[in-house]
């Protein structure tokens, strides 16, 4: 069996599972945010349920429109807050809250071998620590809050094998954009994406989170990386819990095996309006940008900020560009202050936002007007994603985004460093 099949079998009380099988599995962690949570609470209450199945396994993270951008979003967060109090479930208030998929691993809530569901499509992020983790809807969350269960179809697995050493300015974001360009935005639809190979084994956790985070952009049900020493070291820095390490068997059955020479990957940029429109950054070097966003559940972690600061140090943001930096959590924000990164950003003319999903989904804190162009370290570049239906979003890694902020057009980091 594959790692995905093993975790699912374990949670369904079965010896084995096979692709296509419908199972009812128990969940270890249930997540919802300020957009999807209120709908889940409505369904929970409509069903006449009084109590959640286990208050320690539910977490509500108001991160999308917070700090609340308007009256309606304030009402939605209020709903979440009241429910959390009533049911005694985890709720992260402003001052503690961060972007859910950076926050939960940092809080030690996500563990290897767990089955995690979240009413947010990027819940697939936690596959990076060897969990089965997938995005679901609000009704699924309501059902899970009542029963502790979820219905699932066991996915077939596509194995991705990466070999070779990464080039300078190439990281997790480039690996996943390159992969999505290769297989398409539905190339892994309903599938588990298992990321393996020597390149992955040598990647730090932050890059692994970025890769698994965007499995959904290829249509994947989950992305997963077998836990190893790097996973273990990360875990021991955030929790005393160990989790359960699962590995794919030697004779595990894969629907497909995709081999990728990672040493050939260059810094990538995905042009509007699909993440699969990804090419070498130099293909887009004549594109002028109005806004740069560095943050999100994809690339708002400390190593992302370090990479961006390394490019920004001693340089100025182009006068025609708004550069917005969003540390994904309070801990990351504080660490960035300690390391002097925030100083570098402010000195170069960037603005720092509190932790929020904000502009990634055109919510607030950097919405685009008609005809405007942004390059962002976020995960989606759909029509109108960051604002006006006639605005344009290019996706990249943090170094490319910062280099572009300095040059005022999409740029390879080589153009601003020696």
């Amino acid at each position, binding site marked *: 069996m594959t790692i995905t099949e093993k975790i699912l079998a374990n949670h369904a009380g079965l010896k084995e599972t096979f692709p296509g099988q419908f199972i009812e599995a128990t969940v270890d962690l249930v997540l919802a945010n300020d*957009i999807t949570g209120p709908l889940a609470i409505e369904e929970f209450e*409509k*069903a006449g349920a009084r109590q959640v199945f286990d208050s320690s396994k539910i977490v509500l993270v108001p991160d999308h429109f917070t700090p609340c951008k308007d009256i309606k979003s304030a009402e939605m967060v209020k709903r979440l807050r009241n429910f959390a109090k009533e049911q005694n479930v985890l709720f992260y208030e402003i001052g503690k809250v961060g972007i859910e998929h950076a926050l939960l691993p940092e809080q030690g809530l996500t563990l290897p071998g767990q089955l995690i569901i979240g009413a947010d499509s990027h819940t697939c992020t936690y596959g990076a620590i060897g969990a089965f983790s997938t995005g679901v809807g609000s009704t699924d969350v309501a*059902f899970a809050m009542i029963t502790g269960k979820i219905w699932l179809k066991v996915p077939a697995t596509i194995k991705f094998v990466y070999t070779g050493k990464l080039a300078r300015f190439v990281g997790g974001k480039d690996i996943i954009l390159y992969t999505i360009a290769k297989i398409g935005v539905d190339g892994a639809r309903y599938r588990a994406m298992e990321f393996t190979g020597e390149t992955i084994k040598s990647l730090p956790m932050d890059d692994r989170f970025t890769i698994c985070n965007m499995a959904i952009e290829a249509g994947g049900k989950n992305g997963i990386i077998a836990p190893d020493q790097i996973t273990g070291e990360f875990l021991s820095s955030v929790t005393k819990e160990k989790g359960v390490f699962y590995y794919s068997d030697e004779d595990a059955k894969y629907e497909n095996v995709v081999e990728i020479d990672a040493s050939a990957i260059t810094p990538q940029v995905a042009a509007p309006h699909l993440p699969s429109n990804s090419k070498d950054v130099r293909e887009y070097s004549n594109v002028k940008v109005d806004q740069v966003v560095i943050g999100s559940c994809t690339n708002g972690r400390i190593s992302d900020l370090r990479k961006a600061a390394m490019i920004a140090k001693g340089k100025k943001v182009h006068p025609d560009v708004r550069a917005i930096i969003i540390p994904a959590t309070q801990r990351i924000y504080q660490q960035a202050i300690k390391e002097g990164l925030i100083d570098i950003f402010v000195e170069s003319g960037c603005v720092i936002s509190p932790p929020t999903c904000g502009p990634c*989904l055109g919510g607030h804190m950097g919405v685009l007007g008609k005809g405007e162009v942004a390059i962002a370290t976020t995960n989606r570049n*759909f029509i*109108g994603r960051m604002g006006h239906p006639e605005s344009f979003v290019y996706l990249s890694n943090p170094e490319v985004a910062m280099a572009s902020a300095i040059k005022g057009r999409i740029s390879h980091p080589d153009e601003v460093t020696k």
Partner: protein
Amino acid sequence: MIVKGKVWKFGDHINTDDIIAARYLNTTDVKELASHCMESIFPDFSRKVSINDIIVAGENFGCGSSREHAPIAIKGCGISVVVAKSFARIFFRNAINIGLPIVETDFVDKISQSDILEVNFDTGTIVNLTTGEKGNFIKYPEFLQEIVKSGGLMSWAKEKYIK
């Protein structure tokens, strides 16, 4: 169950931001969500559709976010069924869970904008009344049929879990 309605045809990879833009997600009100359905790619869609109309689309319909507001907005417009070559997985489960009928079939290629379509869920057949052509689709697996028959996941849960 048989539904009949006019076709509104869309292409491949219609994503959840197309179906309902995130700027409207600060509410759970069905009418309000419905009024902005497909707005970015098809202005005034919600005003042009009638009760029982049918959305027909290509591959990977509903890709993107997990927002259940997307199938809710579609259902709120009065759309009776979404027929597509394939669905993104979260949209698929959300539609099943909230009781929005969906059909997966390559017959999509034989359907044009404004055709009148009849979909029979009991027999798994689909008829293009405008052209006279007929097609089939695979019915939901038994497990999902149970949920759909109950009227969605929560009704199913009520029967099974909530006493």
